[in-house]
């Protein structure tokens, strides 16, 4: 009797300990694939593709946009599986969480990372580069980058003021756009000054996300282009204190003046773009915005946004930025990552990305490098009524500022605009 019981315990305990044993053995087999990785940067493309065959690629990306997710899940992943035998697994994660995780993995000396490809730009790129969390200059190794992308173009070569140096590959570019409900807004504001006047006439019908949010931050700093006639000067500044000294007073006094006329009298702000969208969808407010001129189209199509949604650009500067794909230093499947990224930069993938039914976002490929047939295909795509004209987009385009402006807005906005007025 006694013996039997004891055996029972041992067997049971063994089962319980099993996961722990597993965990430790997983830690022990850390560093076996590191050497082959650096050779990949030298290897021929055929070798990379061959090595990538039959592998899984874990793609960590911000999951807050339905259109983007659909594009990856329903367009990119099935084709990668079919044409290259590569299995793309999309993992929705905020980019700052991805960078944090990589940093932790680096500190722990973890050679086998959990991310193969991730989506980033701006602040996150600067941080990842500074902390050496990125693999290396793989951009030039990709045939589609060689053929279709101009890595020297200043809008590509500098990501929010940080030199790209081949550590990441451009995936798309977007421009800041205001979206309004045409049923209520007859005369959409085209400048910040007009917006202020409009807000005064229509109290409670406009607001913007807190600058902790990517889009909200862009909305605040974009004002600088309207305030200053000298856009060249903006691009030379790379220190938050200098930004405060140069533009602080004007920017904050504008937002202080705007505040009482906003939704909930500026007492509080939506904490994310998704929250603002919700208010816009419920017609609690009459405008929303986006750091992607094409984002409203599928939201109108699936009836999330009102049918009367229209777009408006800021005449004196709508900032645009490029966003990128990169491979972490400890990616387990670097060959797969390279092949997947290369595929996402192919003309067919980039043209499909333009389709408003899914993502509806601009290409990063040089139009001139495409074949006549492909160019026709691009021409034929109707981006939709909610997307501004290409010409207008180009006319109002202003480049993104240094990432220190993002810091500056994050640090000061709450004190200057919210706490000041309370």
């Amino acid at each position, binding site marked *: 009797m006694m013996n039997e019981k004891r055996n029972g315990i041992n067997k049971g305990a063994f089962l319980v*300990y099993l996961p*722990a044993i597993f965990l430790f053995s997983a830690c022990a087999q850390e560093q076996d694939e590191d050497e082959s990785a650096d050779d990949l940067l030298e290897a021929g493309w055929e070798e990379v593709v061959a090595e990538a065959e039959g592998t899984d690629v874990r793609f960590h990306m911000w999951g807050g946009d339905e259109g983007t997710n659909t594009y990856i899940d329903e367009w990119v992943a099935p084709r990668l599986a079919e044409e290259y035998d590569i299995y793309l697994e999309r993992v929705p994660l905020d980019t700052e969480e991805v960078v944090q995780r990589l940093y932790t993995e680096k500190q722990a000396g973890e050679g086998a990372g959990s991310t193969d490809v991730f989506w980033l730009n701006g602040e996150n790129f600067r941080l990842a580069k500074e902390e050496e969390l990125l693999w290396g200059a793989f951009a030039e190794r990709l045939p589609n980058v060689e053929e279709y992308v101009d890595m020297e173009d200043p809008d590509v070569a500098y990501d929010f003021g940080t030199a790209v140096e081949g550590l990441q590959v451009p995936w798309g570019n977007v421009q800041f756009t205001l979206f309004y409900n045409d049923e209520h807004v007859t005369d959409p504001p085209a400048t910040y000054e007009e917006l202020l006047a409009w807000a005064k006439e229509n109290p409670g019908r406009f607001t913007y996300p807190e600058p902790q949010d990517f889009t909200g931050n862009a909305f605040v700093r974009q004002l600088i282009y309207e305030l200053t006639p000298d856009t060249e000067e903006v691009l030379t500044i790379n220190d938050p204190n200098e930004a405060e000294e140069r533009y602080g007073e004007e920017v904050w006094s504008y937002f202080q003046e705007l505040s009482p006329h906003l939704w909930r009298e500026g007492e*509080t702000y939506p*904490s994310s773009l998704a929250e603002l969208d919700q208010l816009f969808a419920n017609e*609690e407010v009459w405008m929303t915005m986006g750091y992607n001129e094409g984002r409203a189209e599928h939201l109108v199509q699936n009836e999330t946004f009102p049918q009367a949604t229209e777009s408006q650009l800021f005449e004196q500067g709508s900032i645009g930025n490029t966003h990128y794909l990169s491979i972490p230093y400890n990616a387990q499947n670097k060959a797969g990552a390279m092949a997947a990224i290369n595929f996402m930069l192919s003309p067919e993938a980039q043209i499909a990305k333009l389709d408003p039914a899914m993502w509806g976002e601009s290409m990063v490929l040089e139009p001139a490098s495409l074949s006549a047939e492909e160019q026709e295909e691009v021409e034929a795509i109707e981006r939709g009524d909610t997307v501004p004209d290409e010409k207008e987009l180009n006319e109002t385009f202003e480049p993104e500022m240094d990432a220190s402006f993002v810091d500056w807005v994050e640090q000061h906005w709450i004190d200057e605009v919210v*706490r000041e007025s309370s």
Partner: protein
Amino acid sequence: MRVRKAYIWLLPSLFLLGFLSFFSFFHGVWQSLHLDGSWSEGSLSAYRTVLTDERVRESLGFSLYIAFLSTLISLIVGWLLTRWLYYSCLHRYAKALAWLPMLVPHFVAAYVIILFFSQSGWVPSLFFHAGVIEDPADFPALTQDRSGVGILLTYMWKEVPFVILMLLPAYVEMDERLRMVVYTLGGGKAAAFKEVEWPQIKPIFFETAVILFAFTFAAFEVPQLIGASDPQMLAVLTYEWFHQGLWERRPEALAIMMMTTLVFLLLAWGTLRWVRGLRYRMMKGGAK
């Protein structure tokens, strides 16, 4: 023998939990002291900044207010509901219904409250259609409001069932004959409560209070979702500083977390000691 067996089964998870918690705690202390660079860089500057920072002070006040109020309300409402459930002889399925909100994660609970109470939510539109208010925007702002009503509502909805879960067993175990003794000796309802009911639930009452207070003080997702831009609860401010820019403010964020941890460890330790004393005295049949 049985006790020892239980420990063997628990050991792996205890080890993992303990190891991970302690490791991250020490790592946090390390970074908050700026020691991740080199020994010579170490300093208490993060703690100094945090202790004198105006925003931290305001957030601390707001966090204490929310944590105190939501704990108090949840305890009172939960306790009244427990008594009602216990004495009303409801079917046990009806009792199970009271625990339903426990199945819902906190962030979902916050969304539920937004769905019902935001100005474009169901309750305001119900009032609007019933003609009570002229415009849905006339409904008082109960979510993302500066006084934290939305946060309080969410915590109440989530924590009241927890209080019931903790208190109900105490009532089930209570010896009703003791109450009869009080009545026979000429005591009223108040005396029965004071002599029988309260001593029985008092230790659990305070244990639950500490758990709730610590949780609502330090949790992040609910105030992030349903709180106003300002005032911010301490956890939200910490999260912001933790991720901001090139992580320059990370030592300060960690300093806040380390101080919070320390205070709650002391509080939990003190309460547990005191409660153990209460239980011991109760077991011995009351020292009075």
